[in-house]
């Protein structure tokens, strides 16, 4: 699955980025561009060759683990992408963890008293998170927690494990606030579904205490559809980190992608797209595995 998807994505992106007007040589040269200088750079970068032969060169390089040189920075694209990847991975994982930590208890609270006050509050309030533009929310959080309360650094990535944990909290929170409403709702719905099932009534009548009832029976069954929802949303997230990275000055690959498109840094654009494609496929794979782990029926069906 991984290989045809990755291949297809790179094919589309390669041709798209090369066919839009614009020229990396002009980015570098700016107002000092002359036809001679542009020609020299094109020859250096192989951009004067036919598109097909450029694509074949690209494929050949990939098979040897080389993504080509960054036209803007002049160092291998792989180096730059690998330098910037960890920041985005941190953001995504951290945001997912926070989203789960927020969503599960809130969904439980909502489902425990269906149509009660708590249920309505939990269903409505997170919608604000869905509606607020992330860049605005991000700036607000920075203003409140970094400037006024001075609890967190204003932006950036930090250094060291605890440095990252500290610096990335606000950006991850911003993302989680946007992610949670959907997860809460789907988790709540599936919990209500499960609560009405016969095996729950059976377990209660057997005298299973609330604690174990919840963990063993309700959550495990309810979480399965929510995992799928979460997986799909994280997939969208991977492409959507650009804004958060911009606001919080996080040196991630979302920003790298955006800048590289503007600069027409072809090898980096192609490289980052490949990375995105691989991440999304791996994520779906991960969701499938989680599914199988949680639901033995799926396991035994195979």
């Amino acid at each position, binding site marked *: 699955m991984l290989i045809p998807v990755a291949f297809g994505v790179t094919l589309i992106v390669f041709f798209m980025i090369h066919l839009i007007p614009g020229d990396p040589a002009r980015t570098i040269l700016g107002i000092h561009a002359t036809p001679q200088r542009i020609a020299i750079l094109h020859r250096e970068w192989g951009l004067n060759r036919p598109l097909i032969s450029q694509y074949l060169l690209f494929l050949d390089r990939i098979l040897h683990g080389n993504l080509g040189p960054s036209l803007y920075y002049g160092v291998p694209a792989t180096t730059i992408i690998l330098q910037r990847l960890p920041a985005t991975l941190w953001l995504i994982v951290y945001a997912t963890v926070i989203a789960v930590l927020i969503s599960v208890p809130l969904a439980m609270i909502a489902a425990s008293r269906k149509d009660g006050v708590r249920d309505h509050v939990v269903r409505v309030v997170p919608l604000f998170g869905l509606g607020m533009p992330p860049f605005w929310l991000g700036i607000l959080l920075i203003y409140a927690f970094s400037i006024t309360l001075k609890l967190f650094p204003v932006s950036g990535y930090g250094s060291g494990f605890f440095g990252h944990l500290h610096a990335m*909290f606000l950006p991850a929170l911003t993302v989680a606030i946007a992610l949670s409403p959907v997860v809460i709702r789907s988790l709540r719905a599936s919990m209500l579904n499960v609560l009405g099932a016969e095996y729950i009534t059976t377990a209660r009548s057997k005298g299973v205490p609330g604690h174990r009832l919840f963990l063993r029976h309700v959550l495990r069954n309810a979480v399965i559809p929510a995992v799928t929802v979460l997986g799909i949303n994280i997939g969208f997230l991977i492409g959507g980190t650009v804004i958060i990275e911009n606001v919080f000055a996080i*040196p991630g690959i979302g920003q790298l992608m955006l800048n590289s498109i503007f600069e027409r840094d072809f090898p980096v654009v192609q490289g980052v797209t490949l990375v995105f494609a691989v991440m999304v496929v791996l994520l779906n794979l991960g969701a499938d595995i989680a599914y199988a782990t949680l639901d033995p029926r799926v396991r035994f069906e195979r």
Partner: protein
Amino acid sequence: MIHRSTAVKALIGVAALLVVAACGSSGSSSSSSSSSGGSSGAPVKGGNLTFAAVQDAQSMNATTVFDNNSIWIFEQIYQTLYTVTNDGKGVKPLLATSYTMSSDKKTYTFTLRKGVKFSNGQPMTSADVKFSIDQNRKATQGWAYLDSAISSVDAPSPDTVVIHLKFPWAPLLADLSIFANGIVPNNYGGETENQFYQHPIGTGPFKWDYWHKGSALKLVRNPLYWEKGKPYLDSVTWTDVPNDNTRLLQLKGGQAQVDQTPAWSTVASLKSTPNVNMFLFPSTQTNYLAFNENVKPFQDVHVRRAISLAINRNALVKAVLFGNGKPANSLFPPQVPYYQKATPGLQFNMTQAKQEMAKSSVPHGFTTTILIPSGNSDYLTISTIMQSELKPLGIKVKIQQLDPNTANTNFQNQKYDMSLTLWTMDIPDPDELATFAVDPKSGAKSFFTSYNNPAVVKATHQAETTTVPAQRQTLYNTVQTGAANDAFMAFLYYSPYPYATTSNVHGFFVTPLGNMHMEDVWLSKP
């Protein structure tokens, strides 16, 4: 029934995470509540300055790079024989201490400063100077054109350098002051050019530490720097913070000490913010409206003059710069030598604009397009204002926004009707701008307008080879007056360089050409 205590326990878990994260690492949110105007007495040695920049640098190769963010960083590493004075109008000795000129004006002999070392301990000699200038002359895609008058460079003795010219060349010292002629070790110290520029070495106040691309670039003090007592700072870190709001918040939160180009709309409030200094350094930046004379009716001088007369420059300064600038009256900015204050650059005058239109080839108006890069809110504001200002003349303007790379390409290929553009000087001499802007044979085709006034072109060429200042002034007056009367571009406004710093930063100064001497900067104790 779901046990409520489980839910509560989970919520406590989230709260715990919050607390852990908050107490996590050492607070980098150091308080910036230093008493304002504290001690501006003797400079204090030590400290790290964080400079929040609009974008990352591109490369440290001084001979090929045009990107300002790279230039302003590597200017702290490499130095030149002469450097720009603080008013931007002249040069003063730096790595050279004096020079003599032959009577035919084609040979310059420079005496090098004694006791200068590279940051790796090796002494700087004329061999390094010859190598560096020759490297720039050879750079096929960079700044070589500024050295095009040089025929050869000799190093007859370790502290003498001789430059032979093909013809008398007035801008030589100014050309030598450009960073592309910065002095690096002979033969790149044995490395290849590419290897060298990954961790370059120079004679400047700071030396290489690291560059995490897209994140931060750090330089540390060069302990072997020749100017005694400097630099004061232990290190300078440039961080990549593209969002205007974030840079501002970093400044207020104490995470950065310098905010590069805060948004114009925030300048007024920054001026009245305690603990912040809001600087508006005079710059050589000039904004223009270019007319493509290959497209009708812009070959008609009356049309160009009419449009230029219909533009209310004060309105633009107010709307875009929030008042922090002034209308332009000349192709040259005031900070450039030989700027003519009395240049008759056209200013807002609707009556005269209508008169020009009546005299033109299209008295009833016409439809045209203005090309701008997308995502540039300043340019969009200017274009919208112009749209309404040109309506009374019967000129209907369509605004065409293209992605920046495409817009730039089209502009340079002259695929446009009108377009907004700007210039900042790279050398303290008008020659570079003059040749770029008014000479149709210069490769830039008169700033991509195809403007051709033979008298103006002739004056530009003569001013290059005359070394007498009074004569150059007369010639450049001809150029400026001619360009203004022909209105080949509408000169819009001059704007300063906005920088905001925390009040404990002292000695921070930006020349009109954009150079910063970070060796003069020091931080007072909070």
